[in-house]
Structure formats: structure tokens, C-alpha cells
């Protein structure tokens, strides 16, 4: 699935088995996006949460 990067507008490839909540990174500008929804071949992104100090295992 293809979608435009919300930061640099370059085309981003999202794997077909991607699910809502997964993170995709723009290979061009490095911005992280969270998959907001997947509907058939349509994928919607939203900016991913910034890594927090308390993140981890």
C-alpha cells in the first residue's frame, strides 16, 4: 500500500499485512507515523507519539 509522507510528501510503502497501531518510518525524512486505519488498500497515517523517557520493556 502506498501513502504520502505527511512531513515531506514522498511516497511511503506500507506492507500489505500492516495493522492499525503499527509504526511506519519515512525512508526519506525519517519521520515516524502511526497507522490510524487500514481499509482494504487505503491506509491512513497520523504522527507517531514521541519516544518517552519511560518507554521500553
Amino acid at each position, binding site marked *: 500500500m502506498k501513502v504520502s509522507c505527511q512531513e515531506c510528501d514522498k511516497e511511503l510503502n506500507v506492507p500489505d499485512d500492516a495493522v492499525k497501531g*503499527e509504526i511506519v518510518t519515512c525512508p526519506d525524512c525519517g519521520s515516524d507515523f502511526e497507522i490510524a486505519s487500514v481499509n482494504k488498500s487505503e491506509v491512513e497515517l497520523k504522527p507517531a507519539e514521541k519516544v518517552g523517557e519511560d*518507554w521500553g520493556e
Partner: protein
Amino acid sequence: MAKTGENELSDICIVYDRVRWEEKELFEKATKLGHTAKLIDGKTLSVSTHDGSVSNGFGDIVLQRCVSHYRGLYLTACFEFLDMKVINSYMVAEVCGNKLLTSLYLSKHNVPTPKTHFAFGPEVAADVAGKLGYPVVLKPIVGSWGRMVIPVKDKDVMESMIEMREEMPNPLSKIYYIQDYVERPPRDIRTIVVGDKVVTAIYRYSAEGEWRTNIARGGKAELCPITKELEDICIKASKAVGGGVLGVDLMEDENEGLLVHEINNTVEFRGASSVSTKDIAAEIINYAARMAR
């Protein structure tokens, strides 16, 4: 809860805030095993003291898998308030998410662990490190993936670290967790403990030019044999913090043998799965289904 043949099927809810490989694997495995599984975004949830209906729709048991420690911790508190079953429990999350508490619990339960010292002000932190003798290891109390874990080689570095920590806005940065430096091979051991079983163990080798062994820091995984000694220590460590689905990390001290230095509450197992012969996700799902009964 449905029943098919001899297998009790459960409704398992995976609460996430970003779907990593592990959450996807858990979801797919649960579905494959015949359970009903759903993924719920923790960032979309709200809980009220006067509305118990929030608990509807989470099924028989929740696997709390948030990347944010505090989000996961307080969601767990709310789930337990609503009488929902959660893996892991609030107390386990509280202890494992805090290195100071983990060290206290391990030591209290006679689990071999590195000697660790806690200092509650900048001067006493410098004194403690000086008396121990350098190098020492300075760690944040809350944090993961080896972030801000620093080998402090001498007094000058310690003083710089203290100055930096005192300037940080987070009040936890002013509590100093100082650990003896353990002479070990360039690897540590990650075990995945599910209930009373050590499912798998891997060696994690540091990436080139890196001191820390975290897979998140580029560390490489290799299968580690589960000896009786390793198994006993891991089970004891897991019980010490309350049990559940845990990542128990150990170092091989050249003098003292195996030492547990950390226990992870929302364990990542992608690295372990890449070399393990065990189906880690299936073990976790089977455990969750048993706990749901």
C-alpha cells in the same frame, strides 16, 4: 469463554500504545489457537470511578503491552479496579518498571543480584561511588533499552553525571542508583519466564563499539542452554517480583556466577524468537488462557 473439545477458548485483549512485532505476533497466535483476540489502543481509553461498564469489551483477560511504562502501569491499576484480569498485575508492573524496587525485591528474596546502592542527594551519591571505587554503573530508576545506563570510569565522570542529573527536570533523576561494575563476558542472558516455566534463554552479545547488550542497541541473539541453575534462579526471581510473563536478565559475574540485574514487565521477544526453537507467543497465549479461567 467458549469450549471446544478439551481446550478452553478465551477472549483475550491485547492493550497496546504502538503495535510492535510482539503485539502482532501475540494477536496472530491467539487467533490461530482458536481464541478470540482483539487489539485495543491504550491511548484511546478512559476510565471512570463511577462507570463500571468500561470493563465491557475487554474479554476474559487483558495482556497489557504498552511501551510507555506509566501508561501501562496506570491502565493496569484501572483494569484491576474494574475487577478485570490483567497480565501482569499492577504490583508486578510497579516493581519491574522501577530498578530500585526490583533490586530491593530481588535482594529481599535472596535472588543473586549485583550489589546496588541508592543515594538520595548529589553529595552522598559522589561519596557512595568514591567509597565503592570506580568503575561503577549509574542507572536511571525508570527507563529501558539501556537508555542512560552509564559506566562511570572515574570521579570526574561521576561529578559531571551528577551535575547533569541535578539539572534534569524529572525528580527521579535526583535519586541515584549506583551498581557495582560486574566483570562479565561481552554478553548477558535474557530469559523469557511464563508463569513457572523458563520458556527460552538467549545470550545477547553487545553490538560492536557498544557496551550495553540490549537488542534495542543492536545486540545480537544466540541460543543459551537452560541449565538447572539458570532455571532455578529465574523462577526464584520471577516469584520475588510477583510472577507473570517476564523477561529476566542475568549477567555472568566472573566471581559470583549468575546475577539477575533486571526484570522486564512487557518483555520484548523478537530477538529471542529469532533463535529460539520454542513458540514464545504461543506459550504466553496459553498462559493467558489458563489465567482467564
